[in-house]
């Protein structure tokens, strides 16, 4: 408390002035920026200490919060910065500007107040932010698994090590993933292709639920996941580090991540850097009754960032590399329809294996590199120009069990090269208008070797957009439009004629969004949004022609597929008071020309037996659902959290349910905060109950086996901060599937073969530390 008081005195560049109005409650608004660079800070939390009300700043660093009249203790906090406290007397609408100083020790100080899900007011779309302790509790998990705690988000899995995020029932190329501002361009079309992102780089993961084609172009028809590292330190001469270690009993996973960052002092003020690396290794995963052979995983990631900020301009370079080798469970590489039926009829896998870290065939390796160069220029206080260029290379090798020949080559080799150029102009005027417009361009091409799955292709994309927001009194209005064009040339191999078929296709589409938020009272607001977005068919949907390894499917593409058109309506109701926080969202996403696989009813005769034939086709599908999150805080030390995700999907064309729709998911938990005793700070104990219903709404004839039964899991965790040698260490011990329930999940393609993992006890340690401080040369 003493230090906080000191900080309060030292850093009090807070400007307070009033407008003079006389109502019962008032709006406090203002800007939050970095003290040194004067750059706006996005995602800063503003909260009332000992009261209610939380707000986050938008992209322009602007926040707005409604408060009751009286004396308020306002806290402004952001990861990587020293929190700033100020006491204000609210008797009119206020404008407050906060200037935050980067903090070497900030990581151990910030403790994000847990609301059900912090929502950002930047947009009328539903944006959920995963950060702070909620994010820390997912360390060591894959990106997909980390997001399961967000309502409306689940995963589509291929065994325990491959998870793709699903937003409102849609996944794959319908969900856009941003890695530090760069749209991840990998082979996202594949069901067993997990996103190539190391979650350790993130200090914030944003999930936009719903179609958002405006800012991100085609493909974002289900939602956007944005993984952002914290901003680089800007205090001169500092150098900090952070070490994360995670150990898990199930699969005996060990993960180690180290990061250090700093800012060069004196003459090179404004130049800062960060280097980060992660290594992860795990062996075979255990279910309650048996071990899953060959489910080990190896991952090594590296990222480096360097930036130079000057008063009005800045330049930033970023490089990241992600490498993983994932074992594919033994016994899931079935060659025929009769094999898969046999696997389904068995209660347990026929062969058991001893534990091993060794990753045998079949396995896949993925290497993804991203290089990014970004520059910005502040034209004036209220407008900013940004340019970003990124180059990505994604290389995927899939190795199957050794065939009879001596070939060690992978069954499939795919490499995809993508360069993107983004241009964005942002503006904000005093009258409540803010917005941005820009243009994007992309070029993509691929190289394939060995087995034929998809053809070589070259793709050119271009798009232009504009989005404008207007804030007035209790209203926020948002409107935007975008146009995209895609030129795609595929070099498909015509197997019968033994020649290359060159086909060129053009796709174009418009995206639009229209939304409004109305604040009824300080506590209650209602938001409505309509978004239109489109997605051109992906390369595999157009040209795939081959056996789908590990599912007894023979897939046939359709080169004449049209673009998918999504019309997404959603309504959100948010209520926040000092003891309860309710976030309710209802959505209706109608997708025309939705691309899906339909069984042809015919069999393909391969040497190993018969395979079911599936053909890509289109239909109209609608998704309806409700996401509900409630946090109740009856006493200060106890949080009760309840989350419900309900979804219903109907394929109007085949007059049947949509396959692989997530079943109802309920998560109810409580966390008790014990406070501090002795060297333990922020001691807490929490437990969650997760119930996933059986999916009864399935189309018949589309699946090999009926959906698995409902299941109920219990997770528990203990967390505290420990003072070691003047440095705080965050320690968290969690038990997932505490009661060791044997279950199968509908959205796991390996549910035909084996159970899901059993009890897993996870140890997490995080130690942020300071290497150099700027106390000697502090101004």
């Amino acid at each position: 408390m003493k230090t906080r008081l000191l900080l309060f005195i030292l850093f009090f560049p807070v400007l307070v002035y009033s407008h003079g109005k006389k109502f019962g409650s008032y709006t406090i608004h203002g800007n939050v920026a970095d003290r040194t660079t004067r750059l706006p800070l996005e995602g800063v939390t503003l909260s009332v200490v000992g009261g209610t009300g939380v707000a986050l700043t938008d992209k322009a660093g602007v926040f707005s919060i409604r408060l009751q009249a009286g004396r308020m203790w306002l806290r402004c906090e952001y990861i990587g910065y020293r929190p700033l406290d100020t006491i204000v007397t609210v008797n009119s609408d206020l404008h407050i500007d906060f200037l935050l100083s980067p903090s070497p020790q900030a990581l151990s100080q910030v403790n994000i107040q847990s609301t059900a899900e912090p929502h950002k007011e930047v947009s009328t779309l539903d944006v959920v932010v995963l950060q702070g302790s909620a994010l820390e509790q997912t360390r060591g998990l894959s990106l997909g698994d980390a997001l399961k705690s967000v309502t409306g988000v689940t995963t589509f899995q291929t065994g325990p090590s491959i998870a793709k995020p699903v937003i409102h029932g849609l996944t794959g190329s319908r969900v856009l993933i941003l890695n530090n501002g760069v749209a991840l361009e990998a082979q996202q079309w594949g069901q067993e292709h997990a996103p190539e992102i190391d979650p350790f780089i993130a200090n914030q993961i944003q999930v936009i639920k719903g179609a958002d084609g405006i800012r991100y172009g085609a493909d974002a028809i289900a939602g956007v996941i944005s993984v952002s590292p914290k901003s680089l330190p800007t205090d001169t001469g500092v150098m900090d580090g952070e070490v994360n270690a995670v150990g898990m009993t199930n699969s005996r996973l060990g993960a180690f991540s180290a990061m250090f960052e700093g800012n060069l002092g004196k003459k090179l003020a404004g130049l800062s850097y960060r280097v980060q690396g992660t290594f992860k290794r795990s062996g075979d995963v255990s279910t309650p009754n048996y071990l899953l052979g060959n489910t080990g995983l190896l991952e090594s990631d590296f990222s480096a960032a360097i930036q130079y900020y000057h008063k009005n301009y800045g330049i930033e370079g970023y490089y990241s590399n992600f490498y993983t080798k994932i074992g594919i469970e033994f016994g899931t590489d079935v060659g025929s329809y009769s094999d898969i039926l046999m696997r389904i009829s068995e209660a347990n896998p026929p062969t058991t294996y001893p534990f091993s870290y060794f990753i045998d065939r079949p396995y896949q390796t993925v290497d993804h590199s991203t290089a990014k160069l970004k520059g910005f220029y502040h034209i004036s206080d209220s407008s900013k120009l940004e340019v970003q260029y990124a180059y990505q290379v994604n290389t995927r090798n899939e190795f199957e069990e050794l065939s009879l020949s001596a070939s060690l080559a992978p069954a499939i080799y795919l490499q995809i090269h993508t360069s993107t150029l983004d241009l964005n102009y942002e503006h904000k005027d005093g009258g409540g208008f803010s917005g941005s417009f820009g243009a994007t361009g992309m070029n993509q091409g691929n190289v394939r070797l060995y087995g034929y799955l998809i053809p070589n292709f070259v793709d050119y994309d271009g798009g232009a957009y504009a989005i404008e927001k207007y804030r007035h009194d209790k209203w926020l209005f948002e409107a935007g439009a975008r146009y995209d064009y895609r030129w795609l040339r595929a070099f498909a191999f015509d197997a019968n004629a033994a020649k290359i078929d060159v086909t060129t296709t053009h796709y174009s589409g418009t995206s639009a969004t229209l939304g409004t938020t109305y604040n009824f009272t300080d506590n209650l607001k209602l938001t409505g949004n309509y978004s239109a977005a489109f997605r051109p068919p992906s390369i595999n949907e157009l040209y795939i022609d081959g056996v789908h390894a590990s599912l007894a499917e023979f897939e046939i593409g359709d080169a004449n597929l049209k673009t998918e058109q999504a019309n997404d309506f959603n309504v959100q109701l948010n209520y926040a008071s000092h003891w309860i926080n309710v976030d309710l969202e209802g959505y209706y996403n109608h997708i025309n020309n939705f691309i899906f696989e339909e069984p042809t009813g015919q069999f393909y005769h391969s040497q190993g037996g018969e395979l079911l034939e599936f053909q890509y086709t289109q239909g109209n599908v609608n998704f309806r659902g409700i996401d509900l999150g409630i946090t109740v805080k009856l006493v200060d030390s106890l949080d009760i959290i309840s989350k419900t995700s309900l979804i219903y999907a109907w394929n109007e064309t085949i007059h049947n349910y949509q396959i692989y729709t997530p079943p109802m998911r309920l998560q109810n938990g409580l966390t008790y905060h014990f406070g501090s005793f002795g060297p333990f700070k922020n001691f807490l104990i929490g437990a969650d109950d997760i119930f996933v219903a059986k999916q009864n709404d399935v189309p018949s004839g589309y699946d090999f086996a009926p959906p698995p039964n409902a299941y109920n899991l219990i997770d528990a965790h203990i967390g505290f901060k420990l003072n070691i040698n003047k440095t705080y260490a965050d320690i968290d011990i969690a038990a997932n599937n505490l009661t060791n329930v044997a279950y199968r999940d509908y959205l796991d393609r390996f549910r035909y073969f084996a159970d899901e993992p059993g009890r897993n006890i996870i140890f997490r340690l995080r130690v942020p530390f300071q290497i150099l401080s700027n106390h000697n040369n502090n101004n």
Partner: protein
Amino acid sequence: MIKLKHAVYVLLGTALLYTGCSSKSEEAVQPNIANETITQASLKFTNQANSADTTSCTYTFLLDNNNNVIGTDSTKLILKANSKYNCVVYMLDQTQKPVFVVSNEIKQRENYHLFFYQPTPITTAPVISNTTPYIPGTPVTPNAAPLNLTIARTDLDTNNPPMQVGLTSVFTTGAASSGNLRWVLRHQPNAKNGTYAPGSSDLDVNFITVIQ
């Protein structure tokens, strides 16, 4: 300046960790040899009573240039009633030049391959043990006239204890009858235990069979 030293350690540690972990030599790609394909599979029979009495049946896969199957062709298996035949497996990959004899390769990899021979229709479920080459789960049709054929594998692999393979076998025919012979090669690396279940199928074909 002790703090700077720490920084250097962290830098070195991170760099070492990274280089240590990103050894990718394991996946060094070998020259591009096409994955193995069976394009033709035959069973060759010699009557035990008369070595001049031979017959065979052949199943052929017609492939396109992507090695997708575009058609199949099979010959009928005709055996004499109440006889014993020695049977030998012969499998080819004709996509390779020279033509590759897959059955020789199976002999070398016998420790994780196992052949199954299933006559249908059958009136009663066959007794399944670790030595009978019957496919579990084969439907039983009590009222149909059965195909009077029993098969016994005659070769053993080098597993400990040795298990059957089925590259050679003896076919014993009964009274004249007709039906089908389903012939499956199971591919069971690290998992062969004499039963059908582990692994996947390398080959799964049917021959129309006539015992006359």
